[in-house]
C-alpha cells in the first residue's frame, strides 16, 4: 500500500519532464504549450479535489485556537522526534534528485548528448515498475538492508553520471538511481509510519486545548 502511494505521487514528477521535452520538440509545441498543459493539469487537479472533497474525513475547526497560537510555535510543534530519523533519511535520499531530474537536461547538452527524452522515459518507467516490486523487497529484507542498497545504488549512479559520455551511460545511471530512490521512498515512509507515535498527535491536541481553556 505504502509503495503504491509513493508510486502514484512521484510518477508525475518523473514522467512529465519527458512529456514536456516531447511537447517542446513538436512543430505545434513550444514553451507556451508546456505551460498551457501544466495549467490545464493543475485545473483538472483543482476540479477533482472539489468533486472528491465529499469523501475526505471531516475535521473539527477551532478558529480561536489557530489565531491564538504564534506562527513560529506552530512550526516548532510539527517537529516529531519519533520520525526524525525517517525524515533525515528521506531528505538524504531525495536531496540528490534534482541533479538527476532537472539538471540532467543541461548536463546532456554540456556533454553533447541528444535525444535526452529517452533518459526520462527509461528512468520514469523504471521508477513506476520498481516501486511496488522493491517495496515488497524492502518488507522482506528489512529496512536497514533496503536503505543500504538504496544509498549504494544512488552513489553508484551519481558517480557513473559524473563520468557518463553517451546516452546509454546516462540511461543506465538513471535506472540505477531510480531503483535506489524507489526503494528509499517506500522504506522511509514505512519507517515513519511504524515509528510515529499514534498518541502523540492526540496528546499535542490535548495540550493545545488546555492552553486555550
Amino acid at each position, binding site marked *: 500500500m505504502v509503495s503504491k502511494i509513493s508510486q502514484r505521487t512521484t510518477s508525475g514528477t518523473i514522467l512529465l519532464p519527458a512529456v514536456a521535452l516531447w511537447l517542446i520538440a513538436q512543430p505545434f509545441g513550444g514553451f507556451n504549450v508546456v505551460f498551457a498543459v501544466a495549467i490545464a493539469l493543475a485545473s483538472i487537479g483543482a476540479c477533482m479535489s472539489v468533486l472528491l472533497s465529499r469523501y475526505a474525513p471531516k475535521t473539527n475547526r477551532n478558529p480561536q485556537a489557530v489565531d491564538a497560537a504564534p506562527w513560529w510555535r506552530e512550526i516548532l510543534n*510539527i517537529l516529531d522526534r519519533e520520525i526524525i530519523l525517517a525524515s533525515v533519511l528521506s531528505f*538524504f535520499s531525495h536531496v540528490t534528485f534534482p*541533479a538527476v531530474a532537472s539538471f540532467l537536461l543541461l548536463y546532456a547538452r554540456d556533454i553533447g548528448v541528444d535525444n535526452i527524452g529517452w533518459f526520462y522515459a527509461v528512468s520514469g518507467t523504471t521508477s513506476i515498475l520498481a516501486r511496488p516490486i522493491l517495496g515488497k523487497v524492502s518488507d522482506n529484507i528489512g529496512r536497514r538492508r533496503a536503505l*543500504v542498497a538504496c*544509498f549504494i545504488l544512488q552513489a553508484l549512479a*551519481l558517480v557513473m553520471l559524473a563520468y557518463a559520455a553517451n546516452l546509454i551511460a546516462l540511461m543506465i545511471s538513471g535506472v540505477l538511481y531510480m531503483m535506489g530512490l524507489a526503494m528509499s521512498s517506500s522504506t522511509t515512509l514505512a519507517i515513519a509510519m511504524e515509528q510515529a507515535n499514534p498518541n502523540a498527535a492526540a496528546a499535542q491536541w490535548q495540550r493545545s486545548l488546555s492552553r486555550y481553556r
Partner: protein
Amino acid sequence: MATFSIALPLSNGVGALLCGSLVQWARFFWMYAIYANIAVGGLLITIVNRARLK
C-alpha cells in the same frame, strides 16, 4: 507525520539550490561527485542508526 512530509519538498528545494550553485562554481563533474558523497552520507547515517532500523 508533518515532519516527514516536510522532508520531501525541503530536499527538493535544497537539492536544486545546491545543484545550481555547484554547477556554477565547479561544473557538472564535481556536482555529481559531491552528490555521490551526499548519498554516502545517507549510507553512513543508516549504518550508525542500524539498531533502530530493522
